[in-house]
């Protein structure tokens, strides 16, 4: 397909598709299949977590009590709010409201940034308390020291999962922020119309997925053992 022929088509339509509707439904199916692969990716981690939580429950409970539940809960609120703004920006794109699309996308980015900032504060606390598995592990000064003999070693596995799971989640957030930035630029230039908004919808689905992962991570990591 030459450039000239491509220009004869509606804006945003790739040459391999017959019409925008087909392109939109392909993009939507594509992101859903991708999200399934993401579920399997995180699923391996969740399955491993479940096994060690079952084997070493006391150590997991102890590890959970070191985490700051207020920061975790705040972050949960922040992410849920960002899902709302994301949904609103998809809605605005569908109705062809360029200005609202941009504003809601930027709001989503700001909320995502707040989440990552709070996460950074939490990570920093772990370094201060020397409870970073592998790199800086001497938790004798924390409540973990009350664990039974051998429990410290197992608590290290808990924190390994804490960092691996929240770290991968944060990585997904950072990628999502990059995608949002790209959308902001395109939306600002007026690339999206009421008939062509697939990228906003696709990134929106991705963003909601990342939020849902956190909805599972928060209770699994912060709320074990009924301390409240």
């Amino acid at each position, binding site marked *: *397909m030459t450039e000239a022929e491509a220009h004869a088509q509606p804006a945003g339509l*790739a*040459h*391999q*598709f*017959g019409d925008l509707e*087909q392109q939109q*439904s*392909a993009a939507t*199916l*594509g992101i859903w*299949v*991708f999200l*399934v*692969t*993401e579920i*399997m*990716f*995180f*699923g*391996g*981690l969740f*399955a*491993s977590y479940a*096994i*060690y939580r079952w*084997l*070493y429950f006391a150590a997991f409970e102890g590890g959970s009590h070191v985490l700051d539940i207020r920061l975790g809960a705040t972050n949960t609120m922040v992410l849920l709010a960002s899902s709302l703004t994301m949904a609103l920006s998809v809605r605005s794109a569908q109705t062809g409201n360029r200005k609202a699309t941009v504003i809601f996308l930027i709001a989503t980015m700001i909320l995502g940034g707040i989440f990552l900032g709070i996460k950074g504060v939490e990570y920093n606390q772990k370094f201060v308390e020397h409870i970073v*598995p*592998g*790199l800086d592990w001497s938790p004798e000064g924390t409540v973990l020291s009350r664990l039974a003999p*051998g429990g410290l*070693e*197992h608590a*290290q*596995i808990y924190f*390994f999962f804490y960092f*691996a799971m929240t770290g991968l989640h944060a990585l997904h957030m950072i990628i999502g922020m990059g995608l949002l930035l790209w959308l902001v630029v395109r939306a600002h230039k007026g690339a999206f119309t009421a008939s062509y908004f697939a990228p906003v919808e696709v990134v929106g689905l991705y963003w909601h997925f990342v939020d849902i992962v956190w909805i599972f991570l928060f209770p699994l990591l912060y709320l074990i053992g009924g301390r409240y």
Partner: protein
Amino acid sequence: MSTATLEPRVHAQRTYLNADYGWKSWLFTLDHKRIALLYLVSITFFFVIGGSFAVLMRIHLTEPQGALVQPETYNKLFTLHGIVMIFFFLIPSIPAVLGNFLVPLMVGARDLAFPRLNLLSWYIFIVGGAFTLYSAIAGGVDVGWTFYPPYSSIYSQTHVTAVAVGVFITGFSSILTGLNFIVTIHKMRAPGLTWFRLPLFLWAMYATSIIMTLGTPVLAITLFLLALEHLFHVGIFSPELGGDPLLFQHLFWFYSHPAVYIMILPAMGVVSEVIACFARKRIFGYKIVAFSSVAIAVLGFLVWGHHMFVTGQSVYAGLIFSLLSFLVAIPSAIKVFNWTSTLYKGSISYEAPMLYALGFIGLFTMGGLTGLFLASLATDVHLNGTYFIVAHFHYIMVGGAVMGYLGGIHFWWPKISGRKYPNAWAALAAAIVFVGFNLTFFPQFILGYLGMPRRYAFYPAEFQVLNVMSSAGATILGVGYLIPLVYLIWSMRYGPVAESNPWGATGLEWKTPSPPPPENFAEIPVVNEEAYAYSAQAQEATGD
């Protein structure tokens, strides 16, 4: 020969090969057909690398005390042979080369749904391959292709992390390919091309794509955890650190058993196309064969525990996994029976692709039946970890998957290159591959049954005769693989020009010129007949 008259006309045509020239037009192409050729060249390169490791091993094993290398080097040879052949040749082989080329043509589309992702998948593949090659050159890795901890994460002094990263990265190319195929087959079929009019190759590709998208992420996270354990010495899998090595094996085989079906299902798809074409008949029981592909993909996810019968997994889990492993044999057997029934009263011609397809049926049947020995709990205790396993999976992966791949390459070569290859040479090569293969791997069944363990650099002297037979067979097999490499490259320049449908086959890919134009079809075709309508085709021919 009509070559002389055809040639000027064909060269005047605009094809995907002559539409553009220069390295940029290849490395930045979004055309699925060019990306298929990028993959073809890359995986051929990896096949040669992986094959040369095998050659060194077979030379080494001609003598009981080892003829060539140090035992440590031998460990690296079988590890790299496995990793390169599985992750960098077999898994991408048919999907990324033939699938990439054919899926859009077979569904009657101008390209895959996501051409940029398709090109990205090739770059990811190359980056993953670079990591693996780097580790091979920097000193190799000796943990076996299965990466079992604690050896891989704590004790091995070799380049485990680099290889794990390489395999991890390459996995994403596989995921992207599967995703692209699923969306393309769902959303981009030509008007009239219903699910039950799809060629069986597409059903096989669809089932393969399901495994790629569901299984590969689990391998990725497993290798991720392994690499973290290796780097930070925090116990996830190593018992010394409080981890559970069985967990690694469960996660690893959750992907790596279905991965066997990533390798064999596409070959089954190729065989269905080739058998139908050269028996001039519709595939017997089309729907059953189609669903058997999906059944293999689903059941294949439920049998991973049969790799762990002797590892300390629960006996009851072992019983269930054994039962399920027998069940997964059923859809495979259905395919074999239905291909055989298709041949019955067909007008069979023995072109080179057909020879590979027939070879596939025989060798795959042997590989599949010996798999049942290993799915039985009691016999597996005796045979596990011996050369019986090595022979079994080579019958599936080389006798099955590689034969299917070569058959497919020969079947669609006129479409891909626009040229024909010398049929006599191709038939000879197919025969040499068949003989060489059996001579290489059949003795290994006997060696394994007699108790020779795999992955050892030495063996007792009484096993030498069978080992030398195996090495001799490998030499013949190597020659059989080299001959097609020579005549296929030769044919690109000197082969007779191929018409659009040289085999008289059905299917949309044969209704467009060879090689196809960049946009595949001048007009998007409309389908109004079943797949493999060879009898209708024959009636038309006689009715004229």
